[in-house]
């Protein structure tokens, strides 16, 4: 068992294995199920993730409230026209993240990763990285275990709840988890994976949760798209050998501390941030017929 990143790292070093191996071993012990069963269960998560990351690229999805939808498809079509600023990989990943968020807002099937509001970041980053790296299904499942291990540490020492920690706790956690997963997928060391997670958390530190009309739609979908880019660029830095100056465990503690310091208006209450802009208020009134 591990409660902190440094403990995971120590275990991985002692056994000369990857973080995902440590996470799988822990899961097998905890649930008294075989490695095969646990991997198969993760495989089912991956299947749902792949479906939700793809659906919005091909279909015009509309959210229940009508506030968002259709943007994943729009971005994918734009990408196909071949004149993007950020390049194919990043734009494809962004579109996939939007797709998951749109499917979620339209009452489609998703995997909470770690939450429904941040459900686009892990699928988008992991599927897109696998495409670039030519990684197969098993490697994607490995990456999901690495990511979950990072999530376990965040869950134990901080929070995933926007109501407690703001958007940084949801989209920040998701980006940190995804970043570590794709670092290992790309052949990076456990240390590099933790550096990537650390950098991702740092990049989004302090981000507030301010949903328009209190719905998991805006700004959530676009923050999933930017969270995916955060995950991928943080992974890229770590893979180049760049270190996070602040260690992962201290970043988790910092994220939690900053989250608790946020005023209540900026923690999922829809009483602050963009939710109370004139446009945000107007949209809320429209949606609820006030």
């Amino acid at each position, binding site marked *: 068992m591990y409660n902190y990143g440094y403990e995971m790292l120590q275990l991985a070093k002692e056994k000369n294995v990857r973080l995902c191996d440590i996470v799988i071993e822990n899961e097998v012990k905890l649930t008294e199920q075989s490695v095969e069963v646990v991997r198969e269960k993760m495989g089912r*998560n991956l299947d749902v993730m792949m479906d939700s990351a793809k659906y919005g690229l091909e279909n015009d999805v509309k959210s229940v409230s009508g506030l968002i939808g259709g943007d994943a498809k729009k971005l994918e079509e734009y990408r196909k026209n071949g004149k993007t600023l950020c390049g194919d990989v990043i734009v494809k990943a962004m579109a996939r993240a939007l797709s998951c968020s749109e499917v979620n807002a339209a009452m489609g099937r998703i995997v909470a990763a770690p939450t*429904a509001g941040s*459900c686009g970041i892990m699928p988008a980053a992991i599927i897109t990285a696998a495409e670039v790296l030519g990684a197969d299904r098993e490697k994607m499942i490995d990456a999901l275990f690495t990511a979950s291990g990072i*999530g376990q540490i965040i*869950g134990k020492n901080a929070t995933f709840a926007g109501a407690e920690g703001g958007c940084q706790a949801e989209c920040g956690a998701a980006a940190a988890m995804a970043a570590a997963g794709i670092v290992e997928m790309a052949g990076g060391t456990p240390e590099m994976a933790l550096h990537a997670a650390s950098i991702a958390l740092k990049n989004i530190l302090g981000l507030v949760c301010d949903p328009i009309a209190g719905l998991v739609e805006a700004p959530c979908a676009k923050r999933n798209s930017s969270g995916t880019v955060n995950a991928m660029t943080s992974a890229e830095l770590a893979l180049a050998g760049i270190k996070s100056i602040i260690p992962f465990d201290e970043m988790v503690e910092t994220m939690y501390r900053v989250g608790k310091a946020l005023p209540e208006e900026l923690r999922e209450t829809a009483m602050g941030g963009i939710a109370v802009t004139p446009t945000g208020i107007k949209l809320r009134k429209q949606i609820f017929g006030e």
Partner: protein
Amino acid sequence: MKNYSVFDILGPIMIGPSSSHTAGAARLGKVARGIAGEDFKAVTFYLHGSFAKTYKGHGTDRALVAGVLGMETYDERLRNALFIAKDMGIDIKFIETDLGDEHPNTVNIEFEKKDGSKISVQGASIGGGNIIINKIQGDSVEFTGTNPTLIIKKYDLKGSINTITSIIAESDINIGMMKVTRQGKGKEGLMILETDSKITDEIVEKIEKVDGVISVRAINPV
């Protein structure tokens, strides 16, 4: 420190948009159905707090109905649950109300059975799809529906708790949590037990025969 399973972190697989307002609502509905039984003709949902304010935008209404119809949180029919209930001839009502000093995501679900009797179950969605049932027929209870749960309504008789727990032990089932309440000495009360393994019909039948027992409900996890 809780030792999270990776599937507490990655998952559940669910119908969006909100783990507390959609997935949790569906689980509340399903556990309530387990308590009320399946032979109902009408259901009224009394929505409190955030549930009352945002239920339409989050699909909480559809999720609650999906739950009482027995659907899982990942069932894609969830979004059509209101129509499905209508087709089944089940009368559904939503009433925005103030249930007092309760969790902001609280609902009181009142079932009207085919025989005209009513049963109400109140619970809250407390985050990440997790729930807590806190009232049955107005009696305070507290269980999550994560573990198999026995709800026994009985008179406060000497030795009855011992008899009941012995029946469970004889079936090789471990009790994880137990709570006993009563309205007064010798009066009606509730006994709630969470166990580590499935509660069979056989156990329920045996407990039903114990002196002073009024009713027994077994809820196996949803």
